[in-house]
C-alpha cells in the first residue's frame, strides 16, 4: 500500500486493490492481455497459453504446499484426472466443454481427497512418497481403463465450444485460458483471506499449535488437497483440449517437480509468487530451448541440450540458497528500495 493511504471503512480494508494506481496497473495489464493476440506471433501466443495453464496449476499447488504446507509430488497425476474426465465427457458422451470442465475439476478434487486422507497421519518425506505414489497409481489406472481412456493409445479430444463458437484458433484458446487464469488467481487470492486460508497458514507454520487453537486438521488438510487438486483438474482439462489429444505421456512425473520448482522460484505461500514462478520458469524453458542449437556450435548437441537443462536446476538451487523467499520477495525488496530512495541508498551503503 502506498504512503499516506489510510483505510477508513471495512470495505476499503478488505479490497484487493486500494489505490487508483493499483487499479490503473490492473486495467493496463488486462488491456495488454486483451490485445496480445493482435501483436504477437503464434509461437508467443502458444507460450502465453502454456504459461496461463501453468499458472492455474501452480496456484493449486501453492494452496496445498505453499499455504498449507502439504508437499505434493503427485500434482501432475491430479491434472491427468481432470484431463481425462473432461476428455471422456466431451469426446465419448458429447457433453459441452462448459459442463465437462467443472466435472473435471470436481473429479480431480475428489481424487485429491482420497490421496489426501493419509496426510493427517503422515507428513514431510512420507507425505511426499504418498503423493508420489498417487501419481503412479492414477497413471496406472488410466492405462488399465483402455476401453474408456484409450489406454496407451490415448484419445482424441474435441475443441471447446461456446454455443456455436468453436474455440479452435490459438487466439481464442488464449483468451479462454487467460480468462480462467485470471479467475483462478482472483479466487486463490480470496481463498487465502478466508478462515480456511488462515487455517492453512496456521497448519503450515505449526500444525500442533493450530490444533490447540481449535483448527480441525483433518478437515482443513483435506480442504487444501481438494482445492489444490481442483485447480490441477482445471489445468489438466485445458491442457488436453489445447492439444486436441489426451495421453498419459502428457503428464510425466517430472512436471510435478518443475511445478514445485516454479513455486520455489516464485515464492511459496504467495499468489504473486506462484504467477511469477510459472512465468519465470516457462520463459527460462523457452530460453534454454533456443540456446540449445546455439551452444551446439561449441559443444556436442547432446551436451548443449543437457547444459540447457542443467541451467534450470541451477536457477532453482540458486534461489534456494540466495533467495528462498523467491522472486516475489526480490520484487518487494526492489519496490521498497525505490520507495525509500535516496534514503534506501544510504542504508545500503
Amino acid at each position, binding site marked *: 500500500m502506498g504512503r499516506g493511504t489510510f483505510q477508513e471503512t471495512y470495505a476499503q480494508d478488505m479490497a484487493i486493490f486500494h489505490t487508483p494506481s493499483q487499479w490503473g496497473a490492473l486495467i493496463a495489464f488486462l488491456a495488454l492481455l486483451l490485445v496480445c493476440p493482435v501483436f504477437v*506471433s*503464434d*509461437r508467443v*501466443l*502458444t*507460450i502465453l497459453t*502454456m504459461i496461463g495453464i501453468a499458472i492455474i496449476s501452480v496456484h493449486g499447488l501453492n494452496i496445498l504446499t505453499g499455504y498449507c504446507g502439504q508437499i505434493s509430488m503427485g500434482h501432475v497425476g491430479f491434472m491427468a484426472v481432470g484431463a481425462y474426465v473432461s476428455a471422456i465427457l466431451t469426446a465419448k458422451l458429447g457433453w459441452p466443454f462448459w459442463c465437462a470442465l467443472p466435472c473435471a475439476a470436481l473429479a480431480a478434487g475428489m481424487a485429491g481427497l482420497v490421496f489426501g486422507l493419509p496426510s493427517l497421519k503422515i507428513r514431510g518425506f512420507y507425505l511426499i512418497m504418498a503423493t508420489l505414489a498417487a501419481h503412479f497409481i492414477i497413471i496406472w489406472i488410466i*492405462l488399465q481403463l*483402455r476401453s474408456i481412456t484409450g*489406454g*496407451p*493409445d*490415448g484419445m*482424441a479430444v474435441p475443441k471447446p465450444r461456446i454455443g456455436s463458437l468453436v474455440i479452435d484458433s*490459438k487466439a481464442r484458446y488464449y483468451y479462454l485460458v487467460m480468462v480462467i487464469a485470471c479467475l483462478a488467481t482472483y479466487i486463490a487470492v480470496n481463498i487465502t483471506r478466508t478462515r480456511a486460508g488462515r487455517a492453512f497458514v496456521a497448519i503450515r507454520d505449526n500444525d500442533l499449535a493450530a490444533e490447540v487453537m481449535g483448527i480441525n486438521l483433518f478437515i482443513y488438510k483435506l480442504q487444501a488437497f481438494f482445492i489444490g487438486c481442483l485447480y490441477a483438474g482445471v489445468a489438466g482439462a485445458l*491442457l488436453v483440449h*489445447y*492439444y*486436441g*489429444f489426451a*495421453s*498419459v*505421456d*502428457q503428464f*510425466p512425473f517430472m*512436471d510435478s517437480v518443475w511445478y514445485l520448482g516454479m513455486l520455489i522460484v516464485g515464492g511459496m505461500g504467495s499468489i504473486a509468487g506462484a504467477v511469477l514462478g510459472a512465468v519465470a520458469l516457462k520463459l527460462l*524453458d*523457452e530460453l534454454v*530451448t*533456443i540456446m*540449445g*542449437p546455439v551452444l551446439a556450435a561449441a559443444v*556436442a*548437441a*547432446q551436451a*548443449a*541440450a*543437457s547444459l*540447457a*537443462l542443467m541451467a534450470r536446476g541451477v536457477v532453482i538451487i540458486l534461489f534456494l540458497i540466495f533467495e528462498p523467499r523467491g522472486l516475489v520477495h526480490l520484487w518487494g525488496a526492489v519496490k521498497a528500495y525505490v520507495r525509500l530512495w535516496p534514503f534506501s541508498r544510504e542504508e545500503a551503503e
Partner: protein
Amino acid sequence: MKRNIWLGVAVCALVLLSGSTLFAAKTVYIGGTMSLTGPYAEDSAAVLAGFQDYVKYVNETKQMAPWRKEKWPSDITVELLWRDDELKPAKALSIYEELKAKGILVYRCSGSPVALALKDRLKQDNMGATSMSTGSFLMTPPGTIFTYYPIYTDDLAAVADWFKKGWKESRKPRVAYLTADNSMGKSIEIPEMEAYLKNAGYEFAGTQYVPLVPTSPPTTQLMWLKQNKVDLAVGIMVNPGAQPTVKEMVRLGMGPNQQYKMVFGVGTPCHIVPFADAMGDLGDGLVVAGDYPPWDDSAPGIKWMVELQKKYRPDKFVRHTQYMGGMVEAMSQLEAIRLALQTTPLEKLKPADVLDNGFYKIKNLDMGGITGSPLTYGPGKIEGVDLVRVDQTEKSKIVNRGTFPCRHVYTH
C-alpha cells in the same frame, strides 16, 4: 558534376539491390524436434548427426544420394532447424510454432508423446512429418506423420513369423509380451496383435512390463515368464531398457543359449548395433526386428554413410544406427520438398503442397538398402516400408535372419 555523382550512386545502389535480389540465396528448412535429453537422448543425438550430414551432403553436391539420378535444385540451400523438446509435449508445441513461423515446410516428431500431442495440429496445418515413433496410434486418421521403419506391431509379427519358422516341437509355442511400461511399449497391446499371434499358432501367456529405463533388474517379470513356460517373449523397448533386461535374463539362465530356452525379440527402437557393442557375448540371442543393417553391410546406402562420416566427422564416427534413421528422415523430408517443387515454385510452396505433392507422391523411394524396403507413402499409408528385417546377435556379431513381409497387423 554533383548531379553525375548522385546519378552514379543511384546506379550503383540499383545494381547492388538488383544483384542482391538476383543472387539471393533461396533457403529451404527441414528438421523439427529432437529429444536430446531424456530416455531417447542417445537415439536422437544420432538422428541429429544424420540430419546434419545429409544437409551438408546435399548443399555440397546438390545430389539426393549417390545411387539416385534426381538432383536437388542448385539455387536452393538446405538449412536444418532443430530444438530439444526433452520429449515434453508442452515444449514441443511452442517449438512447432516457432519453427513453423520460421517457414519450415516439413516437420519431425521426436517420439510418441510428442507425436501424439502434435498429431492433430500437424493435420490442421497440413504439415507432413517424419518420426522415429511408430506406434499404432499413428495409423489412425489423420495420418500425416510418416514412419520409415515398420510400426511396432508389424515388427513383432515379423519376430513371430521368424520364430515359428524354426519351431520344431509338436506343441504350440507359448508367447508373452515383455514390454516397456509407457505408451510406446503398451501400444502393441491391441486385439489385432494377440489375434495375429494366435492365428500364427501361438498360445498367448500374458504380459509383463519393464520400466522404460529400469532402475532395478526386472527379476519378477522374468521369473513370471519362466514359471509360465514362455518360449518367445516379444515387446518394444529402447536400448536402456533392453540391455539390463537381457543381462538379468542371462543371470537367471534364460535365453536361446541358456538352460531355460527362451527367445526375446524386440522391435525397433531397440537397435541391435549399439546393443551388440555394449553387451558383447552377454547379449547373445536377442532378436531385433525392423532395424537397420550393421555398419559393415554391403548395401550402397551403408557404404555411402560410412564415407560421409569419414569425411564430415573423421574423429567422431557415430556408431549408433539411429544415425541411419536421421539420414532416412532427412532424405524423406527433402524428397517430399523436391517432388513438391516440381509443381509449385519455392516462393509459393506451403506445407500443404509438400504433403499432397511431396510425401503422398513418394513411391518406391530407393534408400540404398538402409531401410527394409524402398519407401512408399500415400494418403492412409504412413508406414513407408513393406518388408521387415530380422536380426539376431550371435557371439557379439549381428546375423541377419531374413526379411519378412510387413503384416499390417493394426487394422484401425
